[in-house]
Every structure is written in structure tokens, then in C-alpha cells.
């Protein structure tokens, strides 16, 4: 169950739809650098629902064919330079989305639904540029009531970083339940953790609600400070100085990251 970082990322094939979490939710940056080192190509990178340095690193290294996100940003450190350049140059296919649409489409995959409706969106150019989304009349309404239908998003692989796994391969995600949704929705889930504990989370009932069961986890790799320069709530804060250097283009040589 526990594998090396290189073995872990070898399970992400070229061309995969890869779903990754937002910066606040446990980003597997160390695994991302290993993935770049292995030279992955043609990813459909799905941010759930936004991404930052992770998307930017992958785009800078030429790994991404399609980027799907509600936002790509370095937050207080500014715009994501490689992402912005790639969009302006038309070097990646960009599927602009909105946070609740990505959450809902992953919920649809989690439930095995081919599609799910969502309120809002009508009149937005986000919808206008998504021919894969549809608008239909709510069949339960008498009066006109258009509503958007989203096809389910079923990623090939989910990849994230968490504080700890236990000896069974269960992963503690706490209140970051979006990680559980990602794992339920994806065909395979790969996780890096700060450490593997010799206990079982299910022996402590107060932890159980925050556990992603091993049932959904294909492999775990230990990566200490694996979210750096981002943070992980349980262990360390984001490294503001390093993120500022990244934004300025000086953290990783030529932004190659590996």
C-alpha cells in the first residue's frame, strides 16, 4: 500500500484526467514535482475547484493539454505566471468553470449519475463557452424554468496530500470533505502524507467522520513537507517567502520544479 513517490506518480498515465484540490486543502506539491520529472504529458488537469502553484508548475513544464478550473491563482502572491501566459498564447485548452459546477459534477460522479442539475449560471459567459453543458426546462415546473445540466466529471486519478494515513491505508482528511468527494468520484486515488501511523483511525470513533477509507485509496507515499511551499493545516503554514519567490520566478530554476 505504501510506495515511493516515484512509484506513486508512475500510476498517473499520460493523457489522464487528474483532479487536484485547492491550495487550502492539501496539495501534493512534492508528488507534482516527481510527476514533472517523469515527464507526464497531455494531462486534463481538473482543479477542484481552483489551483495555484501546482497547476502553474505543470503548465510551465508542458504537462497539461487541458486545464479545467474555476480559478487559477497564486492568491495574495498574484496571478499564476505560466498559466496566464499559456492562456494568452492559446497553448492550453482552457475549460473555464465555476466552483459549484465542479463540486456538483464530482458529486454526480460520486453518485454514479451521468449528469446533475445546478442553479445559477444562466446568462453567464462561463455557460456560453461550455457547449458540454446544457440548459433544459425543469420537467417538474409548470411555468418556464430553465436550468443547467452538467455532465458528471469522473477523473481517472485524484492526487492530494494529507497529514497522515494509518496502518490500513485510511487517510485522515478532517473537515476537508472535498477530498473525500474527489476520491469517491475518481477511478483511482493517490495520496501523499506527512507520515503513516501504526494505529487504526477506526479505533477512535471521534476521528472516523474525518477519515477517507482505504477502500478508495490505491496507494500512499510518504512525503514529508509534501505540500511545501503550500501548507497543511495539521502540520505547517504556507511558506510566504517561498511563494513570493515563486511568483517572482526565482523559487525553482526556470520554473522546472524538479
Amino acid at each position, binding site marked *: 500500500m505504501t510506495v515511493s513517490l516515484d512509484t506513486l506518480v508512475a500510476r498517473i498515465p499520460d493523457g489522464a484526467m487528474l483532479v487536484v484540490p*485547492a491550495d*487550502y*486543502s492539501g496539495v501534493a506539491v512534492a508528488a507534482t514535482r516527481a510527476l514533472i520529472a517523469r515527464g507526464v504529458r497531455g494531462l486534463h488537469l481538473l482543479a*477542484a*475547484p*481552483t489551483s495555484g502553484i501546482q497547476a502553474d508548475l505543470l503548465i510551465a513544464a508542458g504537462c497539461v493539454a487541458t486545464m479545467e*478550473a*474555476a*480559478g*487559477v*491563482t497564486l*492568491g*495574495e502572491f498574484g*496571478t*499564476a505566471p505560466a*498559466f*496566464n501566459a499559456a*492562456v*494568452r498564447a*492559446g497553448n492550453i485548452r482552457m475549460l*473555464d*468553470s*465555476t*466552483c*459549484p*459546477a465542479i*463540486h456538483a459534477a464530482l*458529486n454526480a460522479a460520486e453518485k454514479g449519475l451521468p449528469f446533475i442539475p*445546478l*442553479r*445559477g*449560471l*444562466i*446568462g*453567464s*459567459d*462561463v455557460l*456560453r*463557452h461550455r457547449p458540454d453543458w446544457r440548459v433544459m426546462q425543469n420537467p417538474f415546473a409548470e*411555468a*418556464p*424554468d*430553465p436550468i443547467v445540466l452538467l455532465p458528471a466529471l469522473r477523473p481517472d486519478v485524484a492526487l492530494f496530500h494529507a*497529514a*497522515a494515513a494509518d496502518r490500513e491505508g485510511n487517510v*485522515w482528511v*478532517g*473537515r*476537508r*470533505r*472535498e*477530498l*473525500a*468527494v474527489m476520491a469517491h468520484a475518481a477511478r483511482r486515488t493517490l495520496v501523499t502524507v506527512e507520515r503513516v501511523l501504526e494505529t487504526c*483511525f477506526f479505533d477512535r470513533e471521534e*476521528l472516523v467522520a*474525518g477519515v477517507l477509507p482505504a477502500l478508495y485509496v490505491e496507494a500512499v507515499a510518504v512525503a514529508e513537507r509534501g505540500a511545501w511551499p503550500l501548507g497543511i*493545516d*495539521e502540520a505547517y*503554514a504556507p511558506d510566504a517567502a517561498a511563494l513570493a519567490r515563486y511568483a517572482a520566478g526565482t523559487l525553482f530554476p526556470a520554473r522546472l520544479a524538479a
Partner: protein
Amino acid sequence: MDDAVLIAALAGLIGTAGHVATGALSPIPMAAAMLARRRSGGRMRVTVLGSRRSNRFTDGAKELFDCAAQGRLDVFFLSGAQIDGEANINLLSVGDYARPTQRFSGSFGAPYLYMLVPRVILFRPGHDRRALVPRVDFVSAPGWSAPEVYRPGGPAALVTGRCVFDWRRAERRFALRSVHPGETAAGVRAATGFDYSEPDAVAQTELPDAALRAEISDVVARDVAETYPQFAATFGGQGFDGAAQGARPAL
């Protein structure tokens, strides 16, 4: 720009809402919400995305959106790289969509929240003709919708670094409510790329007195600093403990 003026003006617009939420990169709206909560005697619920202490959500990142759709969220804040006179907002790009001259982060939750949260306060400190335009290049979220479209929410007001606009839903246009200290109605008109209503005599946005400024500084130091340490450090000169984090679980 005098942040205390903006914070006080936003707090006034929040009024007596039951539940206010603020999104990413929103220290001034957060301070305003915390000030409004203090005035409510603590009864107002404030949810700050990005905070552990001021965030009681436990159902993952989707909960904000579900909560809004359930009608349990009264006020939210949005911004725009461009905002036009019909209250359309653009968070995405300038120029042609396929090959933009400027690309921003993305539309985030705006295409949804702008339509579902009853009172959305637009907040955009920078106020010039590049930001407040006749027509946005990309509609991240529309300011109004056709009557058959389900839309319990929408814009309530627009606060910039120069003034406060009310949104007049029936007229589908903004109306100048007040100009901030040091600004004039003519100056606002010159800096604004869209047309709007204007009363004969334009009020001045209230300038916080010393007591209110002290209260705002206190709110920033006590409530905002956990989520926005840099903002708080600059704002009040208050010390900040960078190591302060939410409670860590004992795994």
C-alpha cells in the same frame, strides 16, 4: 485610500443580516462583517472562507454553495476586474475570450452566488474607466436575469474607493449614494465608464470618528488578523503572532 471609511460603509450596507460570508482575499469585507457582527451583539453569523476560527462549515468546500442555495446566506461580497452599468461582473479576461490581452484568475463561485445570495455587495477599491466600463468583455455573472430565470439573489450595492452606488433593480442601473471624503460627484462621473443615476445633492460617505476608528482597529486585530495577518499588521500596527493556527487534531 482610507480603509476605515470602506469598512464602515460596508458594515452599514450589511446592516442586520442574519448570515454574512466573505470569500478569498477579502480582508476589508471581512473586517466590515466582523464590525457588523459586533453591532448585532454577536447574533449575526459571519462565515469567513479561508479561516478556521471564523468558519463553522463541516461539509467540505461545497457547503458554502449548498448553504446559499438553501437560503441560509443573506449577504456575500463579489468584485470584478470589470464591472458595467448593468452590474455585470468580469473576473476572467479582457479582450477576445480565446486570446485575451489580460487574463485574471477566473470566475470562482460568482456565476452561482451572484444569482442565489439575496444581497451581494460588489466591492472594488480601484475605480477608473478601465474597471467601471460600459460593457464587460466577459460576463462572469450577470447583473440581472430574465423573469423566467430562477434568481433569488443579485447585487445590492457597489462600493469603490471613491463612492457608494446603490443598485436599482427595477431600473437596472446604479445610483450614486455617497462620495467618500475628498471625492466629488463630478470626479466620480469622470472616473466612471458607465452611466448611472445621480441625485441633485450627493451625500458624503460617513467619515468614521475616533471611537469608530478605534473599534475598527480592534476588530481587525482581534478578528481579522488570524486570516489576514499582513493586512492586520499594516492596518493597525498591531503585533501578529504568525504561528497562531487553528487547533491541531491529536491524531
